[in-house]
């Protein structure tokens, strides 16, 4: 498993596409966050860091999913899988190694963006606590989302071509994000299966700031009067916040199990 992790990480970091997609994503992020940055740096550390994470959580995971989408299918398409499958290392060990290697490598630019902004904030405001907030927020909000997106991007292309997956993923990601108001459109936003992490944002970090473009305070989790899917919008509390994280991790395991089953079926 560690061998696959190490080499998948190395291969992903050496891919020119990895840095091209990262560059494009950063440009998009700059367009989104750039005008807000001076104001963001004047906010208290907790608010500044949570808003950074919220801004980043729309474009960065899309680039992340794009880059992971072909990692597993290429082994079968190119034929490398035949050599790997003829080794004594179990297929599921290689799958986990590949998953962790891809997620780590592709997640590195995201970590660099978060902590880059946090370091800039900490230096400008003499507020080292920004780094701790970022660490906690990354662990509770972004990491579960990346683990889920990584598993989804690795496994779905076994059933649909990577290009189709990428198009569908953009739609899915925007549809489930805070950009789509639940009152107007049936969406998974603000539910416990919301991959952007509305429950941890609200419960663990007490953030009730306005959604992008909404201009006013609002909730990030919980029931929305008149919205569809309120059955998966329980009252936000510690238990439901942890449940939200647990669901994302559970879905990740489910995706990887599907990938393993699909690979085993290929041998039948």
């Amino acid at each position, binding site marked *: 498993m560690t*061998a696959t992790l190490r080499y998948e990480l190395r291969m992903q970091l050496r891919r020119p596409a990895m840095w091209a997609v990262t560059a494009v994503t950063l440009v998009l992020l700059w367009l989104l966050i750039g005008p807000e940055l001076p104001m963001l740096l004047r906010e208290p550390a907790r608010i500044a860091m949570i808003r950074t994470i919220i801004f980043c959580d729309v474009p960065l995971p899309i680039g992340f999913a794009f880059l992971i989408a072909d990692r597993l299918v290429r082994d079968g398409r190119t034929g490398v899988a035949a*050599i790997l499958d003829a080794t*004594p290392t179990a297929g599921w060990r290689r799958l986990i190694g590949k998953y962790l290697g891809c997620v780590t490598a592709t997640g590195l630019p995201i970590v660099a963006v978060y902590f880059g902004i946090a370091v800039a904030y900490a230096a400008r405001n003499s507020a080292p606590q920004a780094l701790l907030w970022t660490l906690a927020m990354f662990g509770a909000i972004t990491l579960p989302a990346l683990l889920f997106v990584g598993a989804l991007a690795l496994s779905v292309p076994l059933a649909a071509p990577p290009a189709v997956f990428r198009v569908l993923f953009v739609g899915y990601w925007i549809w489930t994000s805070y950009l789509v108001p639940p009152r107007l459109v049936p969406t998974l936003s603000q539910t416990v299966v919301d991959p952007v992490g509305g429950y941890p944002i609200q419960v663990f970090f007490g953030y009730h700031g306005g959604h992008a473009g909404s201009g006013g305070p609002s909730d990030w989790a919980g029931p929305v009067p008149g919205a569809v899917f309120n059955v998966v919008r329980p009252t936000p509390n510690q238990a439901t916040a942890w449940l939200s994280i647990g669901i994302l991790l559970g879905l990740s395991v489910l995706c990887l199990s599907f990938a393993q089953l699909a690979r085993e079926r290929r041998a039948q």
Partner: protein
Amino acid sequence: MRIDIQHLVKSFRRDVRALDDLTLTVPTGMFGLLGANGAGKTTLIRVLAGLLRPTSGRVLIGGHDVATKAGRRDVHRALGYLPQDLAVYPELTAREFLDYLGLLKGIDDPVLRRRRVGELLEVVSLSGDADRKLKTYSGGMRRRIGIAQALLADPRLLIVDEPTVGLDPQERIRFRTLLAQLAGQRTVLLSTHIVDDIAQTCRHVAVLSRGRLAFNGTVEALTTHANGRVWTVVTTGPQPTGILVSALPESDGVRYRVVSQTPPPDGQPTNPTLEDGYLSLPDLGVSDRRERRAPRSARDR
């Protein structure tokens, strides 16, 4: 490491039988597997390598049943496998690729692994290019890396599928000589449609045709199968009847070599070669092959 195949059937969708009630024993040593494209060689190899599950029948390798997970794991510990279309990771160097596969093959000691990778790069004459990325390698160089990876864990069973495709004549001779040298205490299963590779390296050969065993015996027995059926004819007229082996233009016409039960007009009997013996097998008649397509193997899909 002996391979016992009993009544092996491998079917794909729409009941296409790529392997049809195949029974074969492969002893220790060098063993050739011949057959036309689509005869089922690659499907058989993929079953033996544990990459495809048999539909029915039994395959035991060194006593391990490849239909079971535990059996496959035991076989994989002893296996070196070179697939027909070798693929590599283009982002890795040759040394890294071999190191990675060494780890997957259970060579955990880094010093031992480094030494083994170095030795094999030497064997396949790629030491000077070991730190170049594989995307810069030619087809022949990649093939040599494939050979090196198959030998990494000093396998007791070596299965090579069309290993000399893409190699230049010198490399081809060097590689098949290497295989023959390795065969001492190992089982080396060489699958190919290049008859000359078998003629130069194997004592035993099996021939597959449409997923069935068309021949199993020594190379000499297959050669003598064509005794009294090989003819040369020099003519300016039409091609003589029979299975055409070769046609060589000469000053007084074309010299044809044919395999035929009955002598063609002006035909001179000639000593058979392994290729003649292969072509003379009843299940492999050229007209037969032209008229009926063999079932496609999984590899061809």
